């Protein structure tokens, strides 16, 4: 009897992610959600720019690769072309919360019936570890070598909190994948974000606190612990908005 298998919606392509990076877990959770809802044949994914740029090789669904920050706009086009399709974006923090903040905010404000998977690891991974919009105060990166100084480099952006102010957003939840318990909660949230779209409930965004052992300069184990010690206290997990919670 199979106890655990690779989801159908993941291809056999070997992932290119660094050892200890949690993108792999998040990919699997997305694929499991697609499998469980039986929507593989009508799902279209939008890959972004960053470490997950080649997500189009890993999901078995039709995929388009968007310019840096523009995934929600591309997803808007795909969804408006055929609303019966299930459309998701997979974006990192630089993509979604810096160069693409405008597209993120406005797709939420419009209540686009799409699902956004927002992977927040507080750093630009692909380009070698620069300060991200979500880097923590004091965090050392290549472009904040003395630690992020909020006096000159500003404060991190808490996207879920910010987006929760918008009437157009339906479902916003922040989860993590650094423990079995957190992975199980993340799975529930991602599944719900896709189910919402199937049910026409509008804009859902799941912020997943992720790790970057390579650019954080930590072992994978230490990186998982750092999520508990530093990331989650600054980015509290939980549901920030659920427009349909009462009626469910």
């Amino acid at each position: 009897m199979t106890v655990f298998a690779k989801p159908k919606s993941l291809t056999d392509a070997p992932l290119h992610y660094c050892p200890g990076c949690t993108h792999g877990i998040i990919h699997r959770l997305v694929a499991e959600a697609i499998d469980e809802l039986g929507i593989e044949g009508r799902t279209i994914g939008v890959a972004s720019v960053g470490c997950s740029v080649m997500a189009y090789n890993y999901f078995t669904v039709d995929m388009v690769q968007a310019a840096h920050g523009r995934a929600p706009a591309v997803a808007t086009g795909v969804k408006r072309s055929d609303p019966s399709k299930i459309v998701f974006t997979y974006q990192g923090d630089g993509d979604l919360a810096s160069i693409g903040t405008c597209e993120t905010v406005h797709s939420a404000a419009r209540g686009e019936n799409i699902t956004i998977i927002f992977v927040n690891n507080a750093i630009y991974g692909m380009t070698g570890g620069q300060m991200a919009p979500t880097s923590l105060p004091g965090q050392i990166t290549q472009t904040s070598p003395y630690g992020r100084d909020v006096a000159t480099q500003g404060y991190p952006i808490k996207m879920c909190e910010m987006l929760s102010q918008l009437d157009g957003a339906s479902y916003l939840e922040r989860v993590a994948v650094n423990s079995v318990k957190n992975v199980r909660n993340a799975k529930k949230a991602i599944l719900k974000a896709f189910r919402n779209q199937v049910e026409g409930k509008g804009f859902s965004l799941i912020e997943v606190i992720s790790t970057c052992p390579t650019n954080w300069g930590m072992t994978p184990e230490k990186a998982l612990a750092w999520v508990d010690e530093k990331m989650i206290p600054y980015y509290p997990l939980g549901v920030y908005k659920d427009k349909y919670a009462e009626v469910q």
Partner: protein
Amino acid sequence: MAEKVLMKGNEAIAEAAILAGCRHYFGYPITPQTEVAAYMAKRMPKIGGTFLQAESEIAAINMVIGVASTGKRAMTSSSSPGISLKCEGLSYLAGCDLPALVVNVERGGPGLGGIQPSQSDYFQATRGSGHGDFHMIVLAPASVQEMASLTMKGFDLADKYRMTSMILADGTMGQMMEPVILEAPELVKYEKPWALTGTDGKRPHNIVNSLFLVPEDLEKMNFARYERYRTVEENEAAAEEFMMEDAEIAVVAFGVAARVSKNAILAARERGIKVGLIRPITLWPFPKANIAAAAAHAKHFVSVELSMGQMIEDVRLAMDCARPVSLVNRAGGMIPSPDEVLAEIEKIQGGIHA
């Protein structure tokens, strides 16, 4: 046959796009093209289409990319500063080999410039509309009727060659009203096996993408694309010739500059000067053959432009600088008068027959 109606150029573009089967329009307000969006906002909801006022020009072009990747006809329109913002998207459209229609109703620049007509985005449209090696098909209407017909043709060429077609119209073309006949074209159906329609579990997934990290692969893509561009150059270059048969002086002008030039040419002909007009209808591919053929009998060329002189380079290149080319130009939203063009023609005539 459809009846003749009086319409603004911008509205003619919008209705022509709908007749060409476009049901997805994304735009952002900017003068002098706003009527395209206003028309679409009225019409699209009535015919089951999408009109969406995007949060920015950048978002609008990326929404076009989204629709185009599903294989449907999509368009956006803007004016010069807005087109600059779309240039990243134009590069991605080319890199992904997606068909789309983009309208630029040009105004004076650079920077915020002005809101009066201009042709100063010629270089941007024919050379540098974004990073990387690529071209767009660039169509230059000179009447409201052509605003409509070239929009329809633009969609067809875009699908045929998997390219972006750009309507490059100066602000005059967008704002002026003329009688126009709007007839639905016969739509050619192009197979789009690459389109993202959902696998339905019946085929491997399609990927629309412009990232190729292996340089050999990326080089191959570029060479293949330019092979396609060569076919476009061979088949699609178009120009109108006016009184060129015996012309000793050849005026080259497009859009409103061509209309002004025609008046100057008629006046010059009355004075016995053998002058004609070559009006490029496609700016890319540039109608090089028309220029080269004219160089056999024309001793002098005149490029008339609403810019500091951009197309003049293509005129020179098309005949390997075999003949001198003068420039009659106004910039910043000004339009050359027929008298200014005529004065240059007479000056050249004096030189030729001195």
